[in-house]
């Protein structure tokens, strides 16, 4: 094992949250090392193909999936520098005011230790940093006013526009979707060309993936990104009061120790608890930051009710972006659907491809043989989809824990146990019913619900924030309650999930946490 130079900060994971921390801290002149278990992708690796796009999705040690609704994480997770944000759809909705005090207001779920107003300035900062297109003014029917987005809304296409009549008929207001993409040239990055390959990685730089935003800034500021570096443990001093660095295996699969004054775990909602639990030592026998037993608990996910329709016209469904053209919070109230609890976030208008999970073929999973060929031909012209994403309440039984099987480095595999409750089924069904009404009112020739198993989309929780060690793992800045120089970043710190896509909030909370860390540096490392 080589003796490595001590870093001010070692960040585990080069995805959305790790990139923000790296950029902010490096700009203050600190030596920052980012360890990433996968490859060091370049924009030129992002081939426009559903096949090749799978290379940037999950790999490494698998998680064992258990429970009534196993958390299918693979499509959502990343592999390599850029993380999941290398292939995300860049939908940039935010959480709303009603997401932050669910326990106080409804006696359900948990409260955040902060409010919307604490995060809002960071939404605005992130929008300026990475470039967001949308109509902030239009969103004020649901949220307090903030800064205008730096770019106007994206272009819309018939595959999105055709739904508007249907939404209007059921009383749902749609506004331009806020997206982390360029509707115009921004900061030297080109405008989007609407070819619909966002989900396999955008090589032009029009979509705000970490390579062209925070991680690019971080590298310019001198951050060292070490790819193929798999972190297995965070180490502490003898009495467990401070972390001293991380143990990892390099590309040659040799064990290394990277000393650092601060450790930031930004390795994803499921992997962060796995590392913390595997870091158990004499001072922390249940794992780091886990005296209360809450590490790994309250894993949450979103689910979607997709309504498919075929219209009797060419909707040009190959055009646009994978994300959304329009969005609505009109069903975001926690009790919007009678007899069900939880928010719903609605989107319309996404570019479709032929294969992969979201492609034409999977719109009718019951078809095969000649019937599937016939459907593909019809779908190519008139198929389009809307989606309503739903909120799952935090449940302590939904968790990540260590299994007995081990990976190639001798680290126990993680096990994710997850089951939905009745409210999820109720919201899921209500959104399907409303989706069919919308499709009918929009004039669809055929419409059907994309049913099957209730999907699991966007992993959150596992290292939740709260007011203290009695109810949470970290504070609102991601700093662990037990060890002041150990931070956790990413969606794992959300105590409730809301129903909107999480990455904008991940960026915002990471920026808030990173600026606090930089601002309180002397106190934190003292």
């Amino acid at each position, binding site marked *: 094992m080589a003796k490595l130079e001590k870093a001010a900060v070692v960040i585990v994971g080069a995805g959305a949250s790790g990139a923000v921390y790296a950029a902010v801290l490096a700009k203050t002149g600190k030596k920052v090392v980012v360890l990433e278990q996968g490859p060091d992708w370049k924009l030129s690796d992002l*081939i426009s193909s*559903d096949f*090749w796009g799978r290379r940037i999705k999950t790999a490494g040690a698998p998680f064992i999936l258990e429970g009534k609704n196993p958390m299918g994480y*693979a499509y959502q997770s990343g592999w390599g520098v850029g993380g999941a944000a290398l292939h995300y759809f860049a939908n940039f909705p935010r959480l709303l005011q009603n997401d932050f005090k669910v326990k106080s207001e409804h006696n359900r779920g948990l409260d955040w230790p902060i409010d919307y107003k604490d995060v809002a300035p960071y939404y605005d900062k992130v929008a300026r940093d990475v470039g967001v297109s949308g109509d902030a003014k239009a969103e004020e029917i649901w949220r307090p006013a903030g800064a205008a987005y730096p770019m106007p809304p994206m272009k819309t296409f018939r595959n999105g526009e055709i739904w508007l009549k249907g939404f209007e008929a059921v009383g749902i207001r749609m506004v331009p979707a806020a997206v982390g993409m360029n509707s115009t040239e921004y900061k030297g990055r080109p405008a989007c060309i609407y070819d619909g390959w966002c989900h396999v990685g955008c090589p032009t730089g029009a979509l705000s993936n970490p390579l062209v935003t925070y991680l690019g800034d971080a590298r310019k500021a001198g951050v060292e990104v070490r790819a193929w570096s798999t972190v297995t443990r965070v180490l502490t001093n003898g009495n467990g009061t401070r972390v001293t660095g991380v143990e990892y295996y390099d590309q040659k699969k040799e064990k290394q120790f990277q000393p650092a004054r601060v450790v930031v775990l930004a390795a994803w909602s499921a992997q962060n608890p796995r590392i913390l639990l595997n870091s158990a030592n004499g001072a922390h026998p249940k794992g780091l930051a886990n005296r209360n037993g809450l590490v790994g608990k309250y894993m949450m996910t979103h689910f979607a009710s997709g309504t498919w329709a075929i219209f009797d016209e060419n909707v040009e469904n190959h055009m646009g972006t994978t994300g959304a053209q329009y969005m609505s919070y009109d069903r975001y109230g926690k009790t919007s659907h009678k007899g069900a609890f939880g928010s719903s976030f609605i989107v319309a208008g996404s570019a479709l491809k032929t*294969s992969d999970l979201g492609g034409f073929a999977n719109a009718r999973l019951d078809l*095969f043989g000649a019937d599937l060929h016939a459907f593909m031909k019809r779908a190519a012209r008139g198929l389009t989809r809307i989606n309503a994403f739903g909120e799952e309440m935090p449940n302590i039984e939904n968790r990540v824990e260590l299994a007995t099987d081990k990976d190639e480095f001798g680290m126990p595999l993680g096990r994710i146990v997850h089951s939905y409750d009745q409210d999820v089924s109720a919201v899921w069904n209500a959104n399907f019913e409303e989706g069919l009404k919308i499709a009918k009112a929009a004039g669809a020739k055929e419409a059907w619900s994309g049913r099957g198993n209730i999907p699991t989309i966007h992993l959150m929780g596992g290292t939740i924030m709260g007011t203290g060690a009695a109810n949470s793992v970290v504070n609102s800045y991601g700093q662990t309650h037990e060890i002041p120089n150990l931070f956790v970043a990413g969606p794992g710190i959300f105590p409730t999930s809301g129903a909107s896509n999480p990455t904008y909030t991940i960026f915002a909370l990471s920026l808030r946490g990173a600026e606090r860390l930089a601002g309180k540096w002397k106190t934190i490392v003292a």
Partner: protein
Amino acid sequence: MHELKRRDFIRGAALGALAFTVGGAQVLLTAREARAQGVPFRLLKANEAETLEALGETLLPGARAAGISHFIDQQLSVPPEEALLEARILNVKPPYANFYRAAIGAMDRASQARGGVRFAQLNTIEQREFVDLMRQNKLDGWQGPPGPFIYLVTRSDAVDVVYGTMEGYESLGIPYMAHIAPEKRW
């Protein structure tokens, strides 16, 4: 992989072909070309490849000629982190060969229990009926990965090789619009 220079592989990967072994040397071919040239399988046994081809052809006519078995075989032979299979994003635990072998075994056992022959030896009507029952988990005495999941994964493979290619898009009249185009319209 060692025989094919990394630079050439990266160039090929960036453009889209897969590395196959022909006459002891590694060359870049599409799966359709590999099948047409009779490239030997790396991992699959002949009967396993035959079952996969028959299943693929039932799921989506044209998948056999598009090289579904060569595609899967080549992908099973590379490290999981390099694999392009939909199994990767459907939470199949690597190594993926374990899943495909278990799936093929389950199908052939069920087919033999029903009619005394392997799946590939059924006629096309029987194969269609078998797949329809498998996707609904209605085959009695089934042992192996769940039938509906086998249907999902292998149907995705069939769609990949038939409609995931540039030719597939062209056949549907859809502009492919690549930023970085796969090689040989793959």
